[in-house]
């Protein structure tokens, strides 16, 4: 593993620790899809995005929209690690009067580019940001993370049509393809796959990757930048609950908090994994 991958793996593990911390303290929330996308978030925030917690509204910054807003424990965790707000805030996630809302709130939370969580809407908003980038002659790129279950929303396909029509090559859609949604397997509930042929038919550049492989994630981001005249979709094959043994590939961990015993086990597993990576923490 390259040095960069190792650093990203440490960061992703820290993100996962934050996710478990937040959801456990909230006694509710959505760990499964947050854990599946933690490696993608690590690559975005620790390598790809030019964002600065001290200038969070910089008009030239890259944009990131968490369209699958329920996975916000992951976003909040990475934003806290990057210094957008104190790490302690994770412990009051979803508490009355606290900063961190159950779904992202751009008005209150430093570093959140779009309020989202009602599925299907955030990705359209990202299309608007990318279009604005073109109109304003800005070089920033816009990334949107969409869930595979979320892609059952018709609005997602309206946006897919829109982005191709307006040639938004500064837009990168990442589908967190963990294969599970609340009611079970995506393929059983309402099969929306395969993505590749559908998106290509809509005029998109499509890259399929292992969403837990840092080299593949970073390489996909790089390839996306070289494609002109059409937007790029990265289909990230992931495992829901990734990193916590008893949560992996279980639909039941979509929207449930661990009890104390489960919390201790999850934290122990993640900490042990982090320590196994060696070096300075």
């Amino acid at each position, binding site marked *: 593993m390259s040095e960069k991958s190792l650093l990203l793996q440490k960061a992703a593990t820290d993100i996962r620790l934050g996710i478990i911390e937040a959801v456990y303290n909230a006694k509710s929330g959505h760990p499964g899809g947050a854990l599946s996308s933690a490696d993608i978030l690590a690559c975005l925030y620790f390598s790809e995005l030019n964002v600065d917690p001290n200038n969070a509204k910089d008009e030239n910054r890259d944009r990131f929209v968490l369209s699958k807003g329920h996975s916000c424990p992951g976003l909040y965790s990475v934003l806290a690690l990057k210094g957008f707000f104190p790490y302690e805030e994770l412990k009051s996630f979803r508490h009355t009067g606290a900063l961190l809302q159950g779904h992202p709130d751009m008005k209150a939370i430093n570093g959140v580019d779009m309020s989202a969580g009602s599925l299907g809407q955030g990705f359209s908003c990202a*299309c608007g940001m990318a279009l604005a980038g073109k109109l304003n002659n800005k070089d920033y790129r816009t990334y949107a993370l969409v869930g595979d279950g979320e892609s059952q929303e018709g609005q997602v396909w309206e946006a897919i049509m829109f982005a191709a029509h307006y040639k938004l090559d500064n837009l990168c859609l990442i589908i967190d393809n963990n294969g599970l949604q609340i009611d079970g397997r995506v393929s059983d509930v309402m099969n929306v796959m395969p993505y590749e042929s559908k998106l290509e038919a809509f005029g998109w550049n499509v890259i399929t990757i292992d969403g837990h492989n840092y080299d593949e994630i970073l390489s996909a981001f790089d390839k996306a930048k070289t494609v002109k005249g059409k937007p790029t979709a990265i289909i990230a094959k992931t495992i829901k609950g990734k990193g916590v043994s008893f949560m992996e590939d279980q639909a039941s961990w979509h929207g449930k908090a661990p009890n104390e015993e489960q919390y201790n086990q999850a934290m122990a597993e993640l900490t042990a994994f982090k320590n196994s990576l060696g070096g300075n923490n």
Partner: protein
Amino acid sequence: MADKIATREAYGNALAELGEINQDVVVLDADLAEATKTCIFKKKFPERFFDCGIAENNMVSVAAGLSTCGKIPFVSTFAMFAAGRSFEQIRNSIGYPHLNVKICATHAGISVGEDGATHQCNEDIALMRTIPGMVVINPSDGVEAREAVMAAVKYNGPVYIRFGRLALPIINDNEGYKFEIGKAIKMAEGTDVTIVANGMMVAEALEARKILAEEGISASVINVHTVKPLDVQTIVSDAKITGAVVVSEEHNVIGALGSAVAEAIAENYPVPVVRHGVNDVFGKSGPAKELIEYYELNAKGIVEKVKVALSLKK
């Protein structure tokens, strides 16, 4: 100016005017540019016009995204598809983050005419009014429609403006006319009853006032172009003089101006309030002018409601 102009036409003209003076203004439509009159802007500023196709939900959220990057999007389609179909996108993508998007919906109300019930939106103002922080405007003629657009662009936040298909008489072309969001306009003084109206019903209210005067009834007329925030003070202080209120609007009597005024009166100075509008039914096909008669969305209908209000007066 022409004797009559549809507020949608005035909207299109205002947009084209605005395009000159504000480079951040962009316009989005959903395959209805000819009907909503955003085509006037499109012709002048094609690089700032975006047809989103028949995909309103995406259009509304795209506008939200554009606004986070400093653009001032005007989003247009029929009221049914803006406030109706895309209610939740307006609420969550625009309303919750209080973004600077102007939702300009045309073809509202019964006066859509022949297209019938599926396209006659009599619910939009009620829906929009429930969204926290949303400004809701229903202009009464072409002059006011233009002013509403100009005021909306100066206001930083979400605004819903309702426009109609039918050409309406110009009633606001007087020297002293001044449009201010949230500030009702006293059109005429009176002592027996207050007629509150907006949209096309303002002209009808003025007509009703004349009929009532012949019968010795003195009616004041207030144009409440902004349903939210409501100008409670102007309405309540007039109700204190007259002791009875009739509210007239081209909308279901449930949830819009009638409800807003009834709430304000009940909470501040309880006197009889009678609502005049579409009486909780769906519309029908027909020429607009015939439908206006059919549903009594006219001076005659207002006069009848005034009689009811006067009978309830203690």
